[in-house]
Structure formats: C-alpha cells, structure tokens
C-alpha cells in the first residue's frame, strides 16, 4: 500500500516537471518586416504594401510589394513566409532567399504572391548574403 502511494507520488511529481506544450492559438505579434542590421546600413525599405488580388473564380490571393532604396551598392537576399489565419506556415514554391542587387541610389520594387488563398499574413525578411 505504501509502495503504491510512493509510486503515485512519483508519477505526479514527474508529470508536474514536464513542460506543457503551448496549445494556445493566440497569435504572437509577428513583425511583417524584418531587416538585418547589415542591410539597414546600406539600404532602406521605403514602401511595404499588401493587398488581396481578386481572381476570376471569385477567390483572392495575398500579394506583397515592397521598395528598397540603396544608399550604396547593395546585395541582399529576401524571402516572404506566408501564414494562414491561425498562424501556420503556408508552404511556397521554394525555401531559399531570392537574391537582388541594387546600384547606388537605385530604388527597386519587388513583388511576391501567396501560394494559396489560405495565406492571410506574411513576414518579409531582408538579409545580406554572405
């Protein structure tokens, strides 16, 4: 009887130590734009637009357009990650960063289209390719 009590206490103790997985679906306040410091040093993101493109079948797709203005010759990599309305990633065509080169004083406009109508939010990341 005593051993049963001890075993029960041990099980309860271990259960208490276990980390509970996060099951709350509350959205983390995710930044739509993330620019690495190396890029900020040479270029600015001057515009960031998002809109839903209406399609002939009545559906729509999220589109993102952003502008980058370079103060000096800049090479950058950019990538848009798409999320559905509960914050889960919507897989795109590829995973790699798209490369872009900007000449001094040049402003370039980039556009990305969500891979599925399910995508409702995004995160744009700009980094300097090594």
């Amino acid at each position, binding site marked *: 009887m005593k051993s049963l009590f001890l075993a029960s206490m041990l099980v309860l103790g271990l259960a208490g130590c276990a980390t509970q997985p996060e099951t709350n679906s509350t959205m983390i306040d995710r930044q739509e734009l993330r620019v690495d410091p190396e890029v900020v040093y040479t270029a600015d993101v001057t515009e960031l637009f998002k809109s839903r*493109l209406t*399609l*002939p*079948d*009545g*559906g729509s*797709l999220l*589109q993102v357009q952003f502008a980058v203005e370079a103060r000096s010759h800049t090479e950058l990599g950019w990538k848009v990650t798409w999320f559905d309305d509960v914050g889960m990633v919507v*897989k*795109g*065509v*590829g*995973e*790699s960063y*798209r490369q872009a080169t900007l000449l001094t004083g040049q402003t370039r406009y980039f556009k*990305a*289209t969500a*891979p*599925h*109508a399910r995508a409702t939010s995004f995160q744009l990341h700009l980094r300097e*390719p*090594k």
Partner: protein
Amino acid sequence: MLIRALAISAGIAVLAGCAAPTRYIDPAADDGPVAMTMDYRDFEKAATDAVEDMLSSGAVNNPDGSRYIMVVSRITNDTMQRIDTDQLTKKIRVSLLRSGKVVTTTAVGLNGAEDEMNMKARELRDSEEFDQSGVQRKGTLQAPDLSLSGKILQRNHKVGKEQQVEYYIQLSLTELASGLAIWEGETPIIKRGSDKSVSW
C-alpha cells in the same frame, strides 16, 4: 623502408585532414558559392517566378471554380549541360497542385503516359481473376485542359577576363481548347565568373 612507409602514412593523414568534410546543405539557408552551371537554386527561382506569375495572372483560375487539368509537354534542353527538366517542371507541378488551382495528369504524355499504370490497370477489365467492382470503368480518365511546354537556353560570352553564362528559362501554358498560349514567362539567369569555370 620503415621511414618511407611512415612518411607516406603521414602525408595521407595530412591530406585527409585538409579535405572538406561532407555535410548537409539546407536549401533554406544556403550561403554557398554559386556554380556556373545551373543548380537547384536556379530551378527554384525559375519555378517560383513562373508559379507566382501564373497564379497572379489568373491564367490557372477556372471560372467555374474547378481545377484545371494540366499535361507536361516538351521542355527542350538547349544548354551544354545534361539537365533533367523534371527538376523544373516538378516544382511547378507541386506548387500548382498545392495552390488548389491545377492538377497534372499522368495518363497523357508526348512519349506515352507518364504513369503507364493508368492503362495497365484498365487491362484488368473483363479478367476473371479480378473483382470487377474495383476495376476502372471506361471513360473515367480526364483529358487535359492546359499544356506546359518550354525551353532552357544557354549562351556563353567572354567578358574581359571573365566568362558570362546566360540561361533563359522560357515557359508557355497553352489552352488546349483554343491552342492559345494563355500564359508565358521567361526567367533569365545570368552568371559571371572565372574564365576557367566550366559551364557544361
């Protein structure tokens, strides 16, 4: 003799220590050097450009809300490299399928069905060995609405002391009912590097 054997062993050990270790590359975080030949990053860029443009143009949106059926036609490799064009078309097919707009048929192809099982499974019709309730009936295969075709071109130039290699990935999506190309795209991939680099 012993000294020579020791010297050779030491030399091998030193050389082995200098060799770069084999490692996995994560395509999502690859800062590795660029090759003059076409690599996976080039196919990924071309497929991303093509799919995003197809989706945003509305070309792959069936107005009745159903999915279009696409067949992959000829993608000509006009480069100096041996390229399996499936590296490009598979990415496009997968992404279009995921988009919910297009499904690809494997029952039709320029050199016969991509999956011969489509017809083989129908040869079971009237066989007494098979439960006929599970055998495919006549007239169930779906004919394609759209055809994806294209070409990959390569042009080499000498630029000063460097070499410039230009690749052009050209794709067309033809509406088979009318024979009209309802979407077309071209992704140029330009690389400049050492004249000693090999691009084939």
